[in-house]
């Protein structure tokens, strides 16, 4: 009886199924009230003109420079930091959780990651300026002690690469936090069994470890992408908007001291929504494929 109740695909009756839907009602009600309504305003507002009436001109403008360039840059920065943050975060999380590593390292890493994952804005930008800026601590040490002049070699913190370096500071911890529970699910016995069968670490990861973790990794990478895509304050604090990123352009048109075109800002936000929707459309089949082994 109990097993029938839990497998809705068995002929147990629609009553059980509808109860489950009801259980999700509070959640959907909450998201309707506090998420859909402001989000809806964005979607609708994108089609409004400066004077009354509907228009597609805001949307059309998105495809012109410099806005399309902003989207390209935003997507590139988000993708790079999501992939690097994802890979390195996975490695660090695994290093902290795996056998042999003292438990206190994991506690420190998890709690630190909690703080660092939301360390952003001007404090983070300034921390990196103080480190790798033109007169930063590391820059000075490299120049004076090791005679490597970073800035003479074309490196600059205040460009796209700099933004990526700084973004990783909050992408890494986010990955660590989100993937840790999944790594917990990677049973020690599997690693033992694999090595008993003569598999090398590489083979373990290729055939056991990564496939098991892949659905969670994909979910985490999407989260990282969205996180970087929406980040605003850090990039502004670092480059004052010289690196064109979509949230910065939105901010300029919505709350700046100079430009003001709220409907165009909403169109830009709609564009962001489309990009993320496309990401999700790529993610869903990938994730389904990755989770195949669990069926």
């Amino acid at each position: 009886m109990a097993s029938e109740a839990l497998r809705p695909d068995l002929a147990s009756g629609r009553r059980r199924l509808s109860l489950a839907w009801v259980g999700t009602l509070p959640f959907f009600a909450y998201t309707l009230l506090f998420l859909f309504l402001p989000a809806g305003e964005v979607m609708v507002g994108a089609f409004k003109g400066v004077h009354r009436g509907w228009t597609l001109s805001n949307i059309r403008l998105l495809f012109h420079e410099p806005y399309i360039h902003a989207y390209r840059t935003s997507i590139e920065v988000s993708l790079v930091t999501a992939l690097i943050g994802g890979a390195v975060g996975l490695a660090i999380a695994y290093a902290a959780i795996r056998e042999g590593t003292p438990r206190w390292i994991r506690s420190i890493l998890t709690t630190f990651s909690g703080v660092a994952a939301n360390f952003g804005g001007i404090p983070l930008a300034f921390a990196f300026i103080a480190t790798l800026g033109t007169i930063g601590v590391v820059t000075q040490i490299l120049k004076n002690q090791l005679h490597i002049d970073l800035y003479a070699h074309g490196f600059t913190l205040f460009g796209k690469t700099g933004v990526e370096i700084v973004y990783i500071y909050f992408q890494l911890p986010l990955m660590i936090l989100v993937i840790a529970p999944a790594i917990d699910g990677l049973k020690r016995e599997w690693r033992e069994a694999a090595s008993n069968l003569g598999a090398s670490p590489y083979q373990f990861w290729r055939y056991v470890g990564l496939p098991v973790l892949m659905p969670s990794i994909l979910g985490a990478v999407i989260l990282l992408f969205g996180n970087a895509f929406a980040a605003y304050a850090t990039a502004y604090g670092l480059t004052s908007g010289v690196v064109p990123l979509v949230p910065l352009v939105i901010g300029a048109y919505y709350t700046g001291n100079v430009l003001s075109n709220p409907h165009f800002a909403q169109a830009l936000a709609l564009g962001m929504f489309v990009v993320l929707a496309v990401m999700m459309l790529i993610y869903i089949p990938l994730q389904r494929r990755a989770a195949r082994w669990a069926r």
Partner: protein
Amino acid sequence: MEDYEAQELEFWRKLDEEGMSRSQMLKRSVAAAAGLTVLSSPGIAWARERGIRVSPPLKGSSISMSELVAQAKKEKHLNTIALPPDWANYGQIMSTFQKKYGISITNSNPDGSSAEENQAVQSLKGDSRAPDAVDDGPAFAIAGTAQGLFTRYFVTEFSTIPRAMKDTRGYWTGDYWGAISIGYNSNLVSPGPKTWKDLLNPAYKSKVALNGSPLTSGSAVAGVFSAALANGGSLNNVQPGVDFFAQLKSSGNFIPVQSTPSTVASGQTPISIDWDYLNLGYVKEYPAANWKVVIPSDGVYGAYYCQAINATAPHPWSARLWEEFLYSDQGQLLWLKGYSHPARFQDLAARKVIPASLLSALPAASIYAKVKFASSGQQTAAKALIASSWPSKVGA
């Protein structure tokens, strides 16, 4: 034609455009009549007789100061917004006001932009947290007026404010102005720059910064204006200004870091193009940086900010008292102490009430005499040009 005259015409045209139908007209007339009836109700009539005011006045001159203070004290409170304490001495202005009248001030969002100020007026309409008065850039003061955010009020000293700095209908009034200056850390920068041309000196590699990006910061837009004036442009054409910054960037002198007190003190932005009142403030605040300030002689550009009262202010009497205070000699001199030029500067100078110490702390008056202000039409055109030209020329 002045901008606000153009705006007034626009206002009447829009009203026409609305094309009121007959029934609408009738409804409005009935409402108006009902309103008149309410106004002539016994209670209100009685209040009028006793000289008890129920609504705040339109003109500061029509009411005695003591009565204004008494009414404001009843409200006990004032909400301000976007007033950084170290910006043109607002900190001392607010504390002096609080001490003098015993009215406490809640200053929210000290770093807010003009857009955020107007947004707060709209979003918090009817809420007790709404700002009572705003300090907007002129474009936003004009836009806010068109949106009906502000109410009319003529401070007592209204006539002594220059014509170019106020809305004749009384919706907003210019409060202080400043000019774009070049501030530099004389420990790290030698020789010191004096003009815009000087900034191209290769010795200033990675040293020149703006206070933000001209896409979001009013100070940076003013910087572009000033650069334009110095490089063959004009108030109507700021392209040479954008081109100059492009040149600065390609030569490696420009760093896109926003100059803040931290970057000034640390030396990360050893040359900062910013408002004179901000740069002059750094001289005393950060003695270690040996900060010096010059107004570039080849491009003297100035801009002012505007005071306006929220039409649905939660504390309308306090708001008017605040305006009276700001435009009194005392308030104006406090702004001068903050290194900015108050709106009534000419009047104060003519009446010789300015202490010599305050005057000597500022750069020479002869430089300021050359200052140019852009009209709101010129500003709008410049911003549009910057929005389209800056990202490709100076952006990454």
